[in-house]
């Protein structure tokens, strides 16, 4: 899922400083599941801002609303009256949601209340680990289902590098992040496909990733 983390309260307070009526707009999909921008987090942030601005003597009017999916116009229509009545919108969606609301309601500025951090797997309660970098050219079939683009600090295609020590990556200070190329080796061994690790992979074509600029998918069969 797309995962995000709330910005520090001070940063959000600075963004809303010039507004009086502020709408906190949550999203009911990815950021709800990762406990960053759902209905509950909207309520907590709204309460914090009400209390903080009152204590500082510049109390603001804070409203709350959460739509099912902030990256689609149809859902945001539900919040249209709230948005039009606000001076400023703090979106607790990922960066896609923030931009969708700005595009849909250009007369109002929508600012981000979250930092969107990636495409991650919830590996245990309260832990999200990046698993995909959306590079646009998936090679998981070659690597035993483990992604070296997202999970290797150097995104190596022909790993491991010399910094792989007893299965641990040298890059991370806490020295507990597994070397994904070590994991790939063991996985391919289990699958009886160890010959794959001997294939020399040429430099990856990064064009389907960010190197080709903003990406766009057009499905003519789906268009109206």
């Amino acid at each position: 899922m797309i995962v995000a983390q709330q910005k520090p309260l001070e940063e959000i307070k600075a963004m809303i400083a010039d507004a009086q009526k502020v709408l906190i707009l949550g999203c009911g999909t990815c950021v709800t599941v990762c406990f960053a921008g759902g209905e509950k987090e909207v309520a907590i942030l709204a309460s914090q801002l009400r209390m903080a601005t009152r204590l500082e003597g510049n109390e603001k009017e804070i409203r709350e609303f959460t739509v099912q999916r902030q990256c689609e116009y149809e859902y945001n229509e539900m919040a249209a009256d709230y948005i039009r009545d606000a001076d400023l919108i703090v979106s607790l969606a990922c960066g896609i949601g923030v931009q969708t609301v700005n595009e849909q309601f250009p007369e109002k500025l929508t600012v981000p209340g979250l930092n969107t951090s990636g495409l991650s797997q919830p590996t245990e309660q309260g832990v999200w680990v990046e698993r995909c970098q959306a590079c646009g050219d998936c090679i998981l079939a070659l690597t035993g289902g483990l992604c070296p683009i997202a999970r290797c600090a150097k995104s190596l295609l022909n790993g491991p590098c010399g910094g792989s020590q007893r299965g641990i990556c040298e890059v991370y200070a806490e020295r507990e992040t597994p070397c994904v190329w070590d994991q790939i080796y063991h996985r391919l061994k289990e699958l009886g496909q160890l010959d794959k690790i001997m294939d020399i992979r040429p430099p990856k074509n990064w064009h389907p990733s960010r190197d080709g600029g903003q990406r766009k998918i057009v499905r003519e069969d789906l268009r109206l």
Partner: protein
Amino acid sequence: MNYAKKLLAEVGLEAERLEIFFLSSAEGVHFAEIAADMTERARQLGPNPLKKSSGVKPWTQMEVKE
């Protein structure tokens, strides 16, 4: 509880205003001690500064059209 205390501290309120205790219904004496301690703590911290009205009217929730 630690999370709720952190939220209060960020806002600028004393986190010590909030506490959680676990005790059974048979621990009446302990309950009374805790109540006395918390009352004393609240006295020392003073009145809740949020109680003072700022004059800003709450922005009421709106009806949502489906």
